[in-house]
C-alpha cells in the first residue's frame, strides 16, 4: 500500500521506514486537505479575504499556485497602513499579473483610501470583461474618479456597488449605459444625475440610491426627475437634493415592490413631488420623510395609501406629522398589516385609535413619542374614532411596546385601554425615561401593574433607561 503522504510531492519523495510505520500511532492524521483537487481548494479560498487566500501560496509547494485560479478578489488597503512604505499598490499589481489568465475574474471588491485614480482605473480595466459579474468599490478619494465606460456596457454584470459618496467625474450625467444582467445596484453619489444609469438597467431588482447634496465645490447638479426602474422589488432611497429652490419629481411606479426604505429631506423653498402607484406586493415599508413646508408634503398621504397591502410599516415622526396635519385625511384599510412602528410627534389618542381601527390583523405595535427640545404642538384634525373596540385588539394584538413614556393622563388611559381590551396580549413593554426620579418610576410601575389585564397570559415589562 502506498503511503498517501508521498502523493502530491513528487519532487520530494519521503523514504518510508518500515519499523517507523509499525510504531505509528493509529490516530496519526494525514494531510488530506492537500489531497483535495485544486478546484475545491480554490472554492474554499474564495471565502477568504484575498490577502489571506494569497498567503496560502507559502503553506507548501502544493499550495503554491492554488490561489492563482481564484475568480473572486476581495482586497482592501487597511491592513497595509501599518507597513513601512505604501505597499498596497504593488501588492495588487502583483496579484493581477501573477494570477491565472484561464480563470477570468468574476467578482472584484476593492476598498482603497490612498491609491491613485490612474492606478485604480488600470485595475478596473484588468478585471472588467465578458465574465465579470460583481463590482464593489469603496474609494475614499477626495477627488473625482471617472470609471471606465466599459463598466456601463458590461453585459455580464449582475451587481454594481459604489459606496460612500463616490465623487464620480461625470458631470452632469453618465455616459450611455446598457446593463442587461444587472439585478443589484447601489449608488451613493454626489452631484451626478443617475437617470441614464437607471434607465439602462432593464432587469434591476434591488436598488439602493443615495443622492447626496454638497455644493462645497460649487458643483450642484439639479436632478429634476427620477424614474425608478419598473422591475424593482426592493428600493432604498435617500434623497438630500431638495435643498435649493427647485421642484424635484420622483416617480416610483414599481408594481412588484416588496421592500421600501425611503428617506427624504426637503427645505422650505424647494418642492419634492413623489408620485406612486399601488404596491400590491409590499412586505416592509420604512418611511422617514422630512420637509419644512407642510403644504409640500401633500404626496405623503398618497404614498401612505399606496402602501396599504404592506405587512410591516414603520413611520418616523415627521412622516406621522404629515398625516396629523393632512386635510381630510382618511386611513386606508391595512388588510395585511402585522407590524406597526409609529413615531408620533405628540401623543394623540384619537389618531392612534383611528389607526388601530384600520389594522384588522395587527399583531405587534410599537409607539414612540418623540422627545424634542423645542416641541411645537401638532393638532390632529381627524374625526373621532368609533366607540367599539378595534378588532385587532380583541383577537390579534400580541405585543405592545411604548417608548418615550411621559406619564401623561392620555398615555396612562391608552395603556389601560390596551391592557384591558387586549384579550390575546402576550407582552407589554414600557420604556421609562431616564429623567424620571426613582420614586416617580416606582409610582408609575406600581400604577400600571395594578391595571386589570384582559389577557391571562399578558406579561408587563418595564425598561429603565438610566444614564450609566
Amino acid at each position, binding site marked *: 500500500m502506498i503511503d498517501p503522504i508521498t502523493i502530491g510531492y513528487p519532487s520530494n519523495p519521503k523514504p518510508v521506514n518500515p519499523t517507523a510505520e509499525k510504531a505509528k500511532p493509529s490516530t496519526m492524521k494525514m494531510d488530506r486537505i492537500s489531497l483535495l483537487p485544486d478546484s475545491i481548494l480554490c472554492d474554499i479560498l474564495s471565502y477568504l479575504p484575498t490577502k489571506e487566500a494569497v498567503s496560502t501560496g507559502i*503553506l507548501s509547494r502544493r499550495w503554491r499556485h492554488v490561489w492563482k485560479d481564484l475568480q473572486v478578489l476581495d482586497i482592501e488597503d487597511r491592513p497595509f497602513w501599518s507597513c513601512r512604505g505604501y505597499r498596497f499598490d504593488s501588492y495588487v499589481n502583483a496579484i493581477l499579473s501573477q494570477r491565472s489568465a484561464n480563470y477570468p475574474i468574476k467578482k472584484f471588491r476593492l476598498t482603497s483610501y490612498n491609491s491613485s485614480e490612474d492606478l485604480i482605473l488600470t485595475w478596473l480595466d484588468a478585471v472588467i470583461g465578458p465574465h465579470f459579474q460583481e463590482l464593489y468599490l469603496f474609494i475614499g478619494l477626495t477627488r473625482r474618479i471617472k470609471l471606465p465606460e466599459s463598466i456601463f456596457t458590461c453585459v455580464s454584470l449582475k451587481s454594481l456597488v459604489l459606496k460612500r459618496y463616490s465623487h464620480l467625474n461625470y458631470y452632469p450625467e453618465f455616459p450611455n449605459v446598457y446593463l442587461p444582467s444587472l439585478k443589484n445596484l447601489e449608488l451613493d453619489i454626489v452631484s451626478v444625475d443617475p437617470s441614464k444609469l437607471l434607465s439602462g438597467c432593464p432587469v434591476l431588482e434591488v436598488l439602493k440610491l443615495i443622492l447626496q447634496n454638497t455644493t462645497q465645490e460649487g458643483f450642484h447638479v439639479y436632478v429634476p426627475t427620477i424614474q425608478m426602474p419598473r422591475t424593482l422589488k426592493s428600493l432604498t432611497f435617500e434623497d438630500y437634493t431638495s435643498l435649493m429652490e427647485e421642484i424635484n419629481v420622483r416617480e416610483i411606479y414599481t408594481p412588484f415592490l416588496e421592500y421600501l426604505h425611503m428617506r427624504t429631506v426637503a427645505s422650505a423653498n424647494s418642492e419634492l413631488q413623489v408620485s406612486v402607484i399601488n404596491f400590491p406586493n409590499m412586505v416592509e415599508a420604512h418611511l422617514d420623510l422630512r420637509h419644512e413646508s407642510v403644504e409640500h408634503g401633500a404626496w405623503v398621504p398618497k404614498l401612505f395609501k399606496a402602501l396599504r397591502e404592506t405587512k410591516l410599516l414603520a413611520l418616523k415622526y415627521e412622516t406621522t406629522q404629515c398625516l396629523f396635519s393632512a386635510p381630510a385625511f382618511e386611513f386606508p384599510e391595512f388588510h395585511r398589516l402585522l407590524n406597526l412602528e409609529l413615531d408620533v410627534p405628540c401623543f394623540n389618542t384619537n389618531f392612534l385609535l383611528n389607526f388601530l381601527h384600520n389594522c384588522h390583523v395587527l399583531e405587534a405595535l410599537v409607539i414612540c413619542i418623540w422627545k424634542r427640545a423645542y416641541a411645537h404642538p401638532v393638532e390632529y384634525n381627524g374625526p373621532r374614532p368609533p366607540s367599539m373596540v378595534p378588532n385587532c385588539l380583541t383577537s390579534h394584538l400580541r405585543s405592545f411596546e411604548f417608548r418615550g413614556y411621559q406619564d401623561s393622563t392620555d398615555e396612562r388611559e391608552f395603556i389601560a385601554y390596551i391592557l384591558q381590551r387586549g384579550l390575546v396580549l402576550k407582552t407589554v413593554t414600557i420604556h421609562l425615561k431616564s429623567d424620571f426620579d426613582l420614586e416617580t418610576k416606582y409610582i408609575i410601575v406600581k400604577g400600571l401593574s395594578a391595571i386589570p389585564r384582559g389577557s391571562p397570559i399578558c406579561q408587563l415589562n418595564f425598561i429603565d433607561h438610566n444614564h450609566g
Partner: protein
Amino acid sequence: MTQLDRLSVYHWLNAWCIKPVGGALVRQEPEYILLALMGSPLKKIMLCSSEKEIFSVEEQVMVQHSVIINNMIEDGSYNHEESKIPLDCVDSKTLKKVIDYCTHHTHHHNDNQEDLEAWDAQFLNVDSNGLYDLLMAANYLEIRNLLDLIYGTIKNMIKGKKIDEIRRIFNIKDHGFTPEEEEQNRKEYPHFY
C-alpha cells in the same frame, strides 16, 4: 413479496395511474398523474455505497439537494425498476451522513434560522477525516448547501491564523520549500509568520 418486488409493482401501478386503495384498484384523476410524475413523497430511491450497502431514501429529499441525482432522475437514466444508484466514491458511513443532512433539511426547512444552524454545527462535529469525506461526497453529488457549510468550516480553520498554525491544523508536515525559498517567503509575507 420482497421489498424490491413491492416497489416495482407500486411504480408500475403509479405509471398506469391505478392506485391500490383499500384492496380495490381505483383509476386516478389527472392530478394524481401529475403528482406521480413530480415525485410523490412516498417514492423512494436506492443509493448504493462503495461498500455495496444499499440505502433507501425519499426521492424528493435527494432530488431537492443533489444536482447529480436530480439530473439522473430527470433525464430518465435512473430506472426505478433497476432501482439503485451506485455511488462508488462514497463509503457507507459518509453516505449515511449525507442522507441525514438532506433529509433533515427537507423536513425542517421551515424551522427558524438558529435551530437550523445549531443542527448544522452539531452535524459537522466530526473528525477531520470525516469532514473531508463529507466534502468529497458533497462535491461529487453537487449538494450546494452542504458544500458551502463545509467550506465555511474549513475557511475558519485558515482565517486569521499564522502559517505555522495552519500547517499544524492541516498536518502539512513537509512544505517542500528550500531554505532560500522559505527565507524569500518570510520577506514577502511577514504578517503571515
